[in-house]
C-alpha cells in the first residue's frame, strides 16, 4: 500500500542550521549563511526515507517565537499553525536547535508543544558542541521535554542518518487523531515562566562548556573595536571594489580575445550578408561583450559569500547601526543593503527581517541605489575606455579608484535619499529597536562557497543567453533594417529603424550629452542594465561595418567625449534600468504606487546627475 506523503516542517531559532538540514536531506542548494535571517521564504523539497517513505519537507524562516513580528516570522507562524488558506498542517515539526545555544530553542519548543503538532527536537551543530566540550544527556532531555530528541550535523556527510531513522520510526506510529491546537500568543508572564522552565531543563540535562569559544572573542576584540572595527570594515569594502577591477582584468582579457577570435572566424568563414552580420555583430559583439564581465561578477560574489559564511555580516550591522541611524536607516538594513551590491532583488527580499514597516519601506526604496553587479559591465567598459590605468600613490589603481568612487556615490546617495525620506515623510518616527544575535564565527565552507558562486555564474550566463540574447536580436534587427537604398553613400545604419528611434529620442537626452546610439541602447537597457553594453556593442559594430573587429571599448574612446562618458557613468548610478527589480518592489511593498515612486525618483536623479556632470565636464573642457 502506498502511504500518503509525509509533511515535515523545519522550525527553529534563526541561524540554527535549518536550511543546511533542508539541503542535506533534499539535495537542494538553498542559500545558507552564518547570520540570523538568511531564509525569508518558504521552500518545499522532497526526499525518501531509508524505509521508502515519501516525504515533503518545508524550510521556513527562523524565529524566536510564534508571535510573527516581522514578515518572515509571519510566514513561519502561518505555516506551523496552518493559517495560510488551503495549507496542509505539517504532520511532524522538526524543531532545529543550535546545540551550543539551547536556551532559546527549548523555550520555542515548549511554545510549539501547545500547537498540538507532533514534534522532534533536532540538536544540530552537534560537532561544534562536542568540540567545545558541551555534553547533552539526550535521553533525559527527551524525557523531560516529552518529545523525541535526535542529534545531527547538517554539514557533514551522513550527519542526518539518525534523523532519517527517527523519521521512519515516528511516521510509522503517527496518531491519526490530530491533537487540539491550544496555541495563543504567550503573555509576558507565560513567556517568562516558559524560559524559566527551559533553563531548568537545560541545567538538568546539559553540562556547559569547559571551553568557551575564545577564537570568536579574540576576533571580535579587533573587528568590533569602536574605531578599529570601522577601519576594518572600510578596508574590506575598499579591497572588495579594487579587486573587482584589478583581479579580474587578466581573465577578462582572455575572454575578450576569445570572443574577438570567434568574431574574426565567423567573419572569415561565412559569406558577407545577414547571417554573418547577425552572428558577428548581434551575437558575438552583443552577448559576448556582456559575458566578458563574468570574472568580475564572480569576484564580487566571492567576497560577499565569504563575509556571509564567516559570520561578519551581523558584526557589520552592529558597527553601522548608529551611523546608518543618522540617515534614518535601521541597523538591520545593513545586510540587505550589502547584498544589494550583488543584486538588488535578494537584497529587497532580505528586508523581510525588518519588523518596522517604515524602516523596511525605506530600505526597499534605496536598495536599488546600491551598485549591483549588473552595473559592473557598464562601469568597467566606460572606465577602461576613458580612465588611464595609472597608479595613484604608487599602489592604488586609478581605474579601481574611480570604480570605488562610483560605489561610494551610490552609497552616499542612498543615505541621502533615506535621510530625505525620514525628514519629509516620517517625521514623527521613533527609532525601532535594534536587537540582533551575533553568531560565533565559522570557517567558510569551501563547498557552499563554490555552490554559491556556481549558482550565481549560472544565473548570469542564463540571463546572457535569454534576456540579453533576445534583446540583442531585437537591437540587431532594428539596427540592420530597413537596408539602405542601393547606391547610397551614407553609413547603412543611418537608414535603420534604430537610428530613426534613437534620433527621435536624442533631443531629450542631448542636454546630458547622450548621442542617438546611447538613446537606443537605453531602451532595451530597461530589461537589465548590462543590456546597454551589449546594445552599444551591436550598434557600433554594425555602424563600423567591415572593420568591426574593434573592441567596443576602443570604439567608445573614439566616438564619445569624456564628458559624455562621465555623464553616462552618472546616469547609471541612479537609473532605474531593471524591470525585475521594479517587479520585486511591487511585490514586496504590495503597491504599484511605491514601484512608480521608485522609478520616478531614480529617473529624476539620473537625469539631474547626468545633466550636472555633463555640463560641469564641458565647462572644464572635457566636451
Amino acid at each position, binding site marked *: 500500500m502506498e502511504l500518503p506523503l509525509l509533511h515535515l516542517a523545519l522550525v527553529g531559532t534563526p541561524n540554527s542550521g535549518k536550511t543546511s538540514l533542508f539541503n542535506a536531506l533534499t539535495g537542494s542548494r538553498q542559500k545558507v549563511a552564518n547570520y540570523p535571517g538568511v531564509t525569508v521564504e518558504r521552500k518545499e523539497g522532497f526526499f525518501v526515507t531509508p524505509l521508502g517513505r515519501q516525504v515533503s519537507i518545508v524550510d521556513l524562516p527562523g524565529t*524566536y*517565537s510564534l*508571535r510573527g*513580528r516581522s514578515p518572515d516570522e509571519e510566514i513561519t507562524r502561518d505555516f506551523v499553525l496552518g493559517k495560510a488558506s488551503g495549507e496542509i498542517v505539517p504532520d511532524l515539526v522538526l524543531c532545529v536547535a543550535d546545540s*551550543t*545555544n539551547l*536556551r*532559546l530553542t527549548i*523555550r520555542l519548543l515548549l511554545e510549539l508543544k501547545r500547537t498540538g503538532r507532533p514534534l522532534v527536537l533536532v540538536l544540530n551543530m552537534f560537532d561544534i558542541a562536542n568540540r567545545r566540550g558541551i555534553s547533552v544527556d539526550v535521553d533525559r532531555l527527551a524525557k523531560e521535554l516529552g518529545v523525541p530528541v535526535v542529534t545531527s550535523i547538517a554539514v557533514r556527510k551522513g550527519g542526518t542518518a539518525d534523523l532519517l531513522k527517527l523519521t521512519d520510526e515516528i511516521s510509522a506510529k503517527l496518531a491519526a487523531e490530530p491533537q487540539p491546537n491550544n496555541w495563543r500568543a*504567550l503573555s*509576558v508572564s507565560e*513567556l*517568562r515562566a516558559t*524560559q*524559566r522552565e527551559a*533553563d531548568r531543563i537545560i541545567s538538568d540535562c546539559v553540562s*556547559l*562548556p569547559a571551553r*568557551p569559544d575564545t577564537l*570568536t*572573542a579574540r576576533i*571580535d576584540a579587533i573587528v*568590533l*573595536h*569602536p*574605531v578599529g*572595527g*570601522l577601519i576594518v570594515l572600510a578596508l574590506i569594502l575598499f579591497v572588495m571594489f579594487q579587486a573587482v577591477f584589478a583581479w579580474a582584468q587578466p581573465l577578462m582579457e582572455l575572454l575578450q580575445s576569445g570572443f574577438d577570435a570567434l568574431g574574426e572566424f565567423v567573419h572569415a568563414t561565412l559569406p558577407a550578408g545577414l547571417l554573418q552580420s547577425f552572428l558577428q555583430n548581434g551575437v558575438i559583439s552583443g552577448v559576448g561583450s556582456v559575458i566578458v564581465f563574468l570574472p568580475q561578477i564572480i569576484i564580487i560574489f566571492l567576497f560577499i559569500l565569504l563575509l556571509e559564511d564567516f559570520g561578519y555580516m*551581523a558584526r557589520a*550591522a*552592529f*558597527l553601522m*547601526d*548608529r*551611523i546608518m*541611524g*543618522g540617515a534614518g536607516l535601521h*541597523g538591520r538594513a545593513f545586510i540587505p543593503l550589502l547584498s544589494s551590491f550583488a543584486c538588488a532583488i535578494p537584497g529587497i527580499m532580505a528586508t523581510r527581517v525588518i519588523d*518596522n514597516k517604515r524602516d523596511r519601506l525605506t530600505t526597499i526604496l534605496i536598495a536599488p541605489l546600491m551598485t549591483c553587479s549588473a552595473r559592473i559591465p557598464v562601469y568597467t567598459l566606460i572606465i577602461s575606455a576613458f580612465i588611464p590605468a595609472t597608479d595613484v600613490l604608487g599602489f592604488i589603481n586609478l581605474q579601481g579608484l574611480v570604480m570605488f568612487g562610483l560605489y561610494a556615490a551610490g552609497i552616499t546617495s542612498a543615505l541621502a535619499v533615506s535621510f530625505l525620506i525620514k525628514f519629509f515623510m516620517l517625521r514623527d518616527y*521613533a*527609532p*525601532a*529597536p*535594534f*536587537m*540582533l*544575535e*551575533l553568531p560565533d564565527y565559522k570557517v567558510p565552507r569551501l563547498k557552499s562557497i563554490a555552490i554559491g558562486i556556481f549558482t550565481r555564474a549560472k544565473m548570469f550566463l542564463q540571463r546572457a543567453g535569454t534576456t540579453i540574447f533576445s534583446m540583442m536580436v531585437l537591437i540587431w534587427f532594428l539596427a540592420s533594417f530597413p537596408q539602405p537604398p542601393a547606391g547610397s553613400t551614407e553609413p547603412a545604419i543611418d537608414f535603420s529603424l534604430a537610428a530613426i528611434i534613437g534620433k527621435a529620442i536624442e533631443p531629450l537626452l542631448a542636454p546630458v550629452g547622450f548621442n542617438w546610439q546611447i538613446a537606443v541602447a537605453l531602451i532595451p537597457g530597461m530589461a537589465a542594465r548590462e543590456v546597454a553594453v551589449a546594445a552599444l556593442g551591436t550598434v557600433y559594430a554594425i555602424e563600423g561595418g567591415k572593420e568591426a573587429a574593434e573592441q567596443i571599448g576602443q570604439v567608445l574612446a573614439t566616438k564619445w567625449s569624456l564628458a559624455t562618458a562621465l555623464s553616462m557613468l552618472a546616469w547609471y548610478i541612479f537609473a532605474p534600468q531593471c524591470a525585475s527589480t521594479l517587479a520585486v518592489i511591487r511585490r514586496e511593498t504590495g503597491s504599484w504606487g511605491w514601484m512608480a515612486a521608485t522609478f520616478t525618483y531614480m529617473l529624476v536623479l539620473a537625469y539631474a546627475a547626468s545633466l550636472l556632470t555633463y555640463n560641469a565636464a564641458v565647462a572644464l573642457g572635457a566636451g
Partner: protein
Amino acid sequence: MTDTHDMRREMPLGLAQRGYTGVIQHLAAKEAGSALSDIELESRLIELGFVEGARVEVLHEGLVGRDPIAVRVDNITIAVRRREAMAIIVA
C-alpha cells in the same frame, strides 16, 4: 536574591560600561522609553534570553554614543541599543 547581589547597586544595563558583568535582577520595560510598547519590549527581551538570573557581560560598544552594545547573555552574544538595554536591571 543572594547576598553578593545585595552588595552591588542595581542599575540598568543601558548605563553599563564595556567589561561590566552582572546578573539580571528584573526587567523594567516602562522606564526604557523604547519605541515598542512595554509588553512588546519585555517579550522580545525575554525571547532573546534576558530573563531574571541570567549572567550578562558587556563585550563591545559602538562608536557613536558608545551605542549599541554587544552583550553576552549566558552563552550567546546579542547586540542591543542602550535605549532598550535600559529596561534590563542588573546588579
